[in-house]
């Protein structure tokens, strides 16, 4: 077992190096840049034989990735914030062409006003483009989920975003346990593309025009692929356990299934929240934490178990749905509304925090939980906002 001091960005680049991706198409944007910088160093030192395309924009970066992946190469790119929004047009093309592209997203606020720090508004605005999404807690998980996602994506023929918190995870150096190169190579195996544009003996047309008589069915095929993700995820997780001895779940259940009050939160904030949960549980308070990892597709029926005892669910999110609600809250409400069989429905609270990288303290999380435990829930929707 090797332990290396890596930032989240470096950990992802390290995973791509071990996978041995064929093509890396890149355009810099903070805070994703450490990923492509680390990878570029691997290239400069001859540690990988990946072909790198340094494009002139994110739009071209994903376009080139699409072209490369359609040509039978294992192809990746990475982005953040406005870069992801600049790619937006290409997102649905990647999923529509059923290309297994792995794209790390270092989550960052979106303009205006411009801000380079962490929140989830970028990837949350791309929820419905036919991409799978996983959210990672730290560099260790980012490393593992990158390797896991490569295989999952190629099994489902769907692209996937591996989301990490900008700066909090992307730039924070922690000890990361890395797997053996060979084991990673064996785990991901050879890339078996569904089609290959470069097969000039069997010319194919990719990206044809579909009129009203055919479009609906072609799109449905992609939607249906999402129904297969659950079983594919389980099977890849089984392989992952076999190869590396580690469990990969749909979510992290931190005392959630045995608690009456559950805090739902994504990514790195869970680390602080877990400290609060520990503190409150040591005071015999009945609280737990639920951290979704696979967020697209959202496996509604899977969330019944970790919420089976919950009477209060607090959904704390780093993104807002102006004029509506935040995305995770809506998904939790749908879970309870459609799948819960208990007569008494739990209270579900929605709170937004930390936009533009504003930090949340453990004290604030504790106050939030205590207010619910004391049956005087905080009315304020935005945590940490200046009055």
């Amino acid at each position, binding site marked *: 077992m090797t332990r290396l001091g890596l930032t989240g960005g470096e950990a992802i680049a390290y995973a791509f190096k071990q996978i041995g991706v064929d093509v890396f198409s890149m355009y810099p944007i903070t805070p994703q840049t450490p990923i492509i910088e680390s990878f570029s160093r691997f290239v400069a030192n001859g540690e990988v034989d990946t072909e790198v395309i340094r*494009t002139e924009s994110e739009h*071209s970066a994903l376009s080139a990735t699409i*072209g*490369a992946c359609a040509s039978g190469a294992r192809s990746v790119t990475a982005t953040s914030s406005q870069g992801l929004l600049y790619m937006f047009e290409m997102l649905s093309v990647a999923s529509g062409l059923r290309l297994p592209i792995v794209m790390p997203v270092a989550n960052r606020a979106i303009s205006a006003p411009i801000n380079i720090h962490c929140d989830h508004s970028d990837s949350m605005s791309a929820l419905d483009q036919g991409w799978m999404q996983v959210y990672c807690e730290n560099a260790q998980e980012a490393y593992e989920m990158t390797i896991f996602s490569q295989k999952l994506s190629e099994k489902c023929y769907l692209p996937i975003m591996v989301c990490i918190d900008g700066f909090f995870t992307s730039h924070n150096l922690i000890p990361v346990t890395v797997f053996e190169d060979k084991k990673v190579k064996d785990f991901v195996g050879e890339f078996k593309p569904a089609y290959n544009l*470069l097969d000039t003996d069997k010319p194919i047309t990719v990206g044809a*025009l579909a009129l009203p008589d*055919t479009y609906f069915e072609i799109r449905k095929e992609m939607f249906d692929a999402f129904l297969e993700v659950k079983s594919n995820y389980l099977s890849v997780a089984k392989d992952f356990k076999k190869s590396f001895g580690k469990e990969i779940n749909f979510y992290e259940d931190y005392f959630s299934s045995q608690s009456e009050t559950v805090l739902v939160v994504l990514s790195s904030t869970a680390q602080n929240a877990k400290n609060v949960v520990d503190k409150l549980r040591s005071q015999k308070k009945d609280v737990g934490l639920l951290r979704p990892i696979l967020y697209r597709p959202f496996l509604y029926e899977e969330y019944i178990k970790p919420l089976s005892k919950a009477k209060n669910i607090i959904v704390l999110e780093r993104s807002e749905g102006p004029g509506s609600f935040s995305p995770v809250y809506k998904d939790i409400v749908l879970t309870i509304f459609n799948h819960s069989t208990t007569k008494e429905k739990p209270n579900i609270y929605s709170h937004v925090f930390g936009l533009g990288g504003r930090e949340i303290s453990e004290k604030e999380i504790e106050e939030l939980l205590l207010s619910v435990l004391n049956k005087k829930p905080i009315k304020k929707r935005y945590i940490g906002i200046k009055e």
Partner: protein
Amino acid sequence: MLINMNIKELAKRIDEKNTMVFGHRTCAGCPIAIICRTVTSASDKPVVCSSATSCAEVTTTIYPQTSWNIPWIHSVFANSAATISGIETAYKAQKKKGKIKKDINFLVIAGDGGCYIPKTKILTTNGFKNVEDLTAKDIVWSVNPNNLNLETSEIIKMHKYDYKDKIVKVNHNWVHFDVTLEHNVPVYNKFNKKVEVIKAKQLLNYGRSDKINIICGDLNWVGKTEKYFVLPTINYSKGHNREPLSKIPIDVWVEFLGYWLSEGHLSIKSKTRNVYSTFISQTKKSGIDKIKSCLLKLPLNHWYSQDRFIISNQQLWTYLKQFGKAKDKFIPSEIKNLPKKQLQTLFDALILGDGTIVNYKDCKAYRFTTISKQLKDDFIEVSLKLGYRTHLDSRTRKNRPEYTVIAYDYKPTTLANLRKSHITSYNYNGKIYCPELRKNHILIIEKDGRISLNMNSFDIGLQALSGALERGHDFVFLCYDNEGYMNTGNQRSSATPKGASTTTTPSGSSSFGKMEFSKDLVKIAMAHNVPYVAQANTHNLIDLYNKAQKAFSKKGPAVIVVFAACPTNMKAPSEQTIAISKLATESNFWPLYEYEDGKLTINYKPEKRIAIEEFLKTQTKFKEVLKPKNKEILKSIQEEVDKRFNDLLKLEKL
């Protein structure tokens, strides 16, 4: 090479390539299909195409039908250049990893009697030579059709002709050659087990495929038996009071030479001390054992140190000195002419040193890698004599050529069974070459093939285009300029000329149409310093074809912008497309020119350029600007056209 041909010949050639088939839904009078077909046909290698969202895309790929007979991809409007950079990079990545095998060289046996186009390589006793470089002094390897024995044959005479007719092209995984119609092709008849000779033109219209088998291996060889090898004697330097070496049994010598050619080197001659050491590097246990048992049979002392065997002997050293460094090594002809038994020993020894053996289900592939051009040719000769089917893969590593010869002993057959798809033809106008042999008349030739990329769009893709040009991807960018956003129904674009009425710049009581001159995409492309940029027009397809051919042949990015007279945009009758295109060039509105490796050439200069009015009045979109009240506007258009052409004349003189 530029082709001089008439339009009928071109049409035939395009039909033969058939890169884009009928059934597309372009408007009546639309030149897009003509342009696409002409350009994609100009590549002699497979073409992969990326298209922007455009008229060409929506009219040719309506699911579930497609007009494209070549790999084709579309993703969105602005990114076709970025898409192709991904595709081209994926190609490089997979080529590097050996996942794509195209662009390797093919080794094959075909006949003389007809003629070869230049760059076809012929195996002589001194290795491969381009057919155009052969002379009557060369001795080539030929094959006896009766027993498939390899035999040398003199060239009696070299014939060189001008040829203007079809060339038959055979492109099979194992076989690649381009020959004239009357060329004799030896084929193997499986039923009577005899070599038969057919004319290349017969390949074009044969019916049964089982008959056309090209011989790629299983040749016979009878060598010249030798019992011993005698090292040339030398004058020993002082202090080396040695008996001259006696005769060495040929089997032992051949094995030793194999090890030394692949893994050996010599000590460097020193001025102060006479050291005559011969080294053979080897670290693998099995290899060490084999080499050791061979060296024990030599009448010489040796020892093994660290990673190499060392033999100290001046006579041996002096003989081996002639083989030079790794890039100069070769197999002496007296060794190559030994019988099969010794050649097999040599072959095995070479493979042990610089080779690998890959086991397939039905065959073993022996891969031998060297940086010596001559050793490569010699190894091919030895492999052929041993009956292997042989491939050559050339590449550049660390700025020097490296060759990998792969010898297959594929059990089922060494015959290449040709199917219809392997055989095509094209028109050719140029020199052809033919060596006339004293006997046998069957030669050994080698020819290569490779992939290239192509595509098509003006405005919002410019950034992606600029990026791809700057990065230097190897691709051709084809832009058909139909002077507006026609796919969405004729809105103004940056390619729309001044004075044109479009749906977003309609002419009215206070407007004559678009106010600005069009953007000069060709000059923008030129500013990227790419190897080739050209402007062409639909009325001169031969010029377009030739430009496309040049574009494909360039290493790096190339851009072709073609005037596409769109009847919907021009608001002109659909049968006028070509006539209007011609006026565009005759008025100098759309000059034909190219920018090749930094030099600009105007391909056509009208004797007397016609007034711009003549061109504009053919199109209703310019109706407003032609009204007397807009006289000044018309004048400014004429001035701009003349200025742009004069600028070209100045650039041409640079």
